[in-house]
């Protein structure tokens, strides 16, 4: 379970302070498929960064499976990420010097696990890229790169997966395939999936939508049920 509690994030530029997120609160149950939407500059990416423990809030707390991320050091949060969190980025963010298979293995290798190679080929098979394991990112299309990224995101069997505009750099067909894959893996593995997007079609595929504007939650389709 992921809980955002009165999250506020401010940036100071010179003497002015700019609040990007203001008092944002919500809770996400295990296995949920949530879309965070909103126009450019509404604070989506900032919120994602806080939820995933990439950054710390100016005030408020992020609690993942009972642990308060906002009180942890940078390295403690890194450990949490390596165990529980998966990432999918708009620009794929594969490491260009590693092959597809090696990219998938990175989270496991960072944890010092054995059998990473077998698990990587299994995951690549699952995303339909069994034959492309030895290829470097440059040799893959955008859609294929994003599927490798998804395989990497699931390699450590995360309890929660964050996706930042996962279809933003893809054509409609490839985008559709990526969404379908995320949905399948969500129901198969029971991992929570949180997508940040301004694509209405993609957002509509989620069972719950949290809409942001100017750093404030203006709509949360799942909230009433949770509150009750």
């Amino acid at each position, binding site marked *: 379970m992921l809980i955002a509690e009165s999250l506020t994030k401010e940036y100071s530029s010179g003497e002015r302070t700019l609040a990007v997120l203001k008092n944002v609160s919500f809770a996400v149950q295990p296995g949920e498929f949530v879309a965070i939407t909103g126009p450019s500059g509404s604070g989506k*990416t900032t919120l*994602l*960064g806080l939820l*995933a423990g*990439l*950054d710390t809030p100016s005030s408020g707390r992020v609690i993942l499976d009972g642990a308060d991320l906002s009180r942890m050091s*940078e*390295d403690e949060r*890194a*450990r*949490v*990420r*390596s*165990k529980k*969190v998966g*990432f999918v*980025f708009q620009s794929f*963010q*594969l*490491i*260009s*010097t*590693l092959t597809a298979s*090696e990219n998938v293995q*990175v*989270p496991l*290798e*960072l*944890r*010092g*696990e054995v059998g*990473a190679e077998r698990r990587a080929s299994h995951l690549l098979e699952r995303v339909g890229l069994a034959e492309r394991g030895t290829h470097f990112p440059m040799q893959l299309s955008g859609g294929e790169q994003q599927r490798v990224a998804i395989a*990497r995101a699931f390699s*450590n069997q995360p309890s929660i997966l964050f996706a*930042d505009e996962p279809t933003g750099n893809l054509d409609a067909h490839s985008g559709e395939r990526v969404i379908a894959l995320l949905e399948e893996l969500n129901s198969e593995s029971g991992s929570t999936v949180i997508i940040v997007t301004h694509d209405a079609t993609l957002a509509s595929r989620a069972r719950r939508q949290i809409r942001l504007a100017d750093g404030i939650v203006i709509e949360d389709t799942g909230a009433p049920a949770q509150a009750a």
Partner: protein
Amino acid sequence: MQLARLAWRESRSTRRKLFLYMSTIAVGVAALVSIDSFARNVTRSVREQSRAVLGGDILLTSRRPFAKETEQYLDSLDSVGVRNVRLTTFPSMAVVPRNGNTRLSQIYGVGVGYPLYGEITTDPPGRYNTLQSGANALVDPSLLITLDAHVGDTLKIGYGKFVIAGTLKDVPGASGLSSAFAPRVYIPDRYLPETRLLVFGSTADYSVLLKLDAGADPDAFIKPFRARLRKQDVQIRTVTQAEERAARATESLANFIGIVGMVALLLGGIGVASGVRAFVARKIDTVAIFRCLGASGNQVLGMYVAQAAVMGLLGAVIGAAAGVVVQFLLPLAFAGMLPVDVHVSVEPVAIATGILIGGWIALVFALRPLLALRNVSPLQALRRDADADVLRMSWRDAPRMIVNVALVLSVVGVAVARAQSVKQGVWLAAATGVVLLVLALVASALAWVAKRSVRAGWPYVIRQGLANVYRPANQTRAVMLSLGFGAFLVTTLYLVQNSIVSDLSVNAASSGANLLLFDVQDKQAAPIDSLIQARGFKVTQQSPVVPMRIASINGHSAESISADTMKNRRAGWAVRREYRSTFRDSISAGETLTAGKWFAPDSGTRNSFAAGDTGEVSLDAGVAGELKVKLGDEITWNVQGVNIPTRVTSLRDVKWTRFEPNFFAVFPSWVLRDAPHQYTVLANVPGPQSVAIIQRDVVRDFPNVSSIDLSLLTATIGKIVDRASTAVRFMALFSVIMGIPVLFSAVSSTRRERVRESVLLKTLGATRAQIMSILVVEYALLGVLGSLTGLVLALGGGWALVHFVFQVKYSPDYGPAIAITAAMMAIAIAIGVIAGRGVFKETAMTSLREN
């Protein structure tokens, strides 16, 4: 393990780049390994050959024939079976009667069995073994050439006649230089009396060489006799002392060029640091992904430190290999300057230390920029900030401070290890620090001035080029440091060399006369004078020479002073030595009075010295210091058995490097007029042919008189200086070569941003010419300022070195120094443009794809 594998995989495509950066250390290691290996070769050769250099285990030398007591001691050695052999050396004219040609030579009268160690080889071979069979002579090949003589010719030395049996090929311990002043002539010593040259006042060294049983300690052997021999004015040298002395001499040479090695290493370190900075900027994206995927800051750091360490070590190994190659070339650069034949061999210790020190310096310098990778936030994977912002580190960051301290300690450590003393090492490190600091300050000042001086009305390319100097992520400091330091180093080496060389040449040229005749007996002075004048040449100076010793100072006898050096602290050599003094009534051109008054005006006409008189004496200020004598002190001189008391009435500063007769002690003529004396005569005889004629005629009429053509001496010194200059130029070239990869490294540290930006400019419609102009403006500015700062620092550094270390007059030669500066500027612009060539290769499409 997994992390190591990951680090290895991750390095896949950037491995070559990183290797390139880390390998700037290779040049430093090459310098270090070649220099240290060669120094070890020299030291080893010195140790191996020092017995042969000395000619025995112990060498006893006297400036006059051995006293009776010493002879008795030598006889006693015979009876206990210690082998000993005589050697008598002195300068004399060698004459070929067939053609009348003459040349000052060094005569070696050798006893049967000389040398006790080592072997003298000849051409034709085996002639040394038959030298003792008759009145034979073996000579340096150069003598045959100057005398236009052949093997088989008769050679006249004094009144003795010898047959030239062959030429000397290899004489142990003789460097090429020793025979340059006077070629050697080896003759059997039993024929010495026939020369009739070893007469009163002649300059000769009488030596005995001893050979002990194998394993015997020469110092322990001679110890019981030391005091007695010293009393007889016998100088003692043992093979252990000779070893130490030779080792010290070569060590200081090694120390000097070792400092160049250290500077090379530091330059390499700076190259590594700026190269790795470029590498780090390139890795921000990857590190951000690693961080998102759960890598800790230390895991990331560990991965890249491991990569850097491996590449640094590899660079060091390659540098060591190159160093070994250079090591085999070094003997060519130093040919003829070393006291022994150097056997060049691979030195594992020097190679290992070179690799370790080089690897360590590379790692420490790489660590500083690498540390910034710890701070790369995973947020950078979502939203990328500018490189400089991402990599910004607080100066209070503890690991950073530790690395900084390690860096300073490493530099000081290397400096101290390479310098002659801890003090010098610390000075060296501090001086390096000051130079780097000044360069860094100038870089900051340049950025500051550039920012404030740009005017909107200036052409765009100039504004953009200037902006590159101060904008965020600029390379101003990196380029200034490497370029300025390179220019500083090369120019300093040049200026120092030039000052030393011109000091020598000034002295050689200052004295007008060129022919020096010495060992002229009292009765020969007048006829020689008229001989020279009759041929139309001028005698410029005729100095009487009276040999004497100090009998007492202020009533304390020389013996008691010698035995009591602890209390009086008078230098023993100055008290015991033989003084070859002169008498005259005026001060000479090469001297200046520093204290007291010159002799009374009536001293020229006064009656000669008689019992009860006290004479005056003028001392060289240096020797007065050694003797701890001041104005008014009384010195009694033993002039061939007659004691002459004198009072010190003046001190002189003598320019010893002038090629003319100089004297420690000068007396007014009335004091020494009646003492037995001989003369040195200085004449102005221009042209080698006239010199040859005079030399021939003098030696025909006065075989005991030696003469030397000082212009020949000047030429010889010129040759030595040329050799030294070759060595120095070699080092300078070495440092220039070293500077180039460092500069490349510095430029590439911001190349990525540069290319990215230029491609954007191209997208916006900039032509290649415009982009090129922007680059040229920037690098010209950096090049001009960097090299000029280096030049100014070098003028200061050169002055300090010349003034404090070499103690000669500072005479900088601005022409070549400015040429070096101009060359460095050109190199900077060329490197900037070459490094910017990537900009022209990339199409404008790249910028679209990147975003």
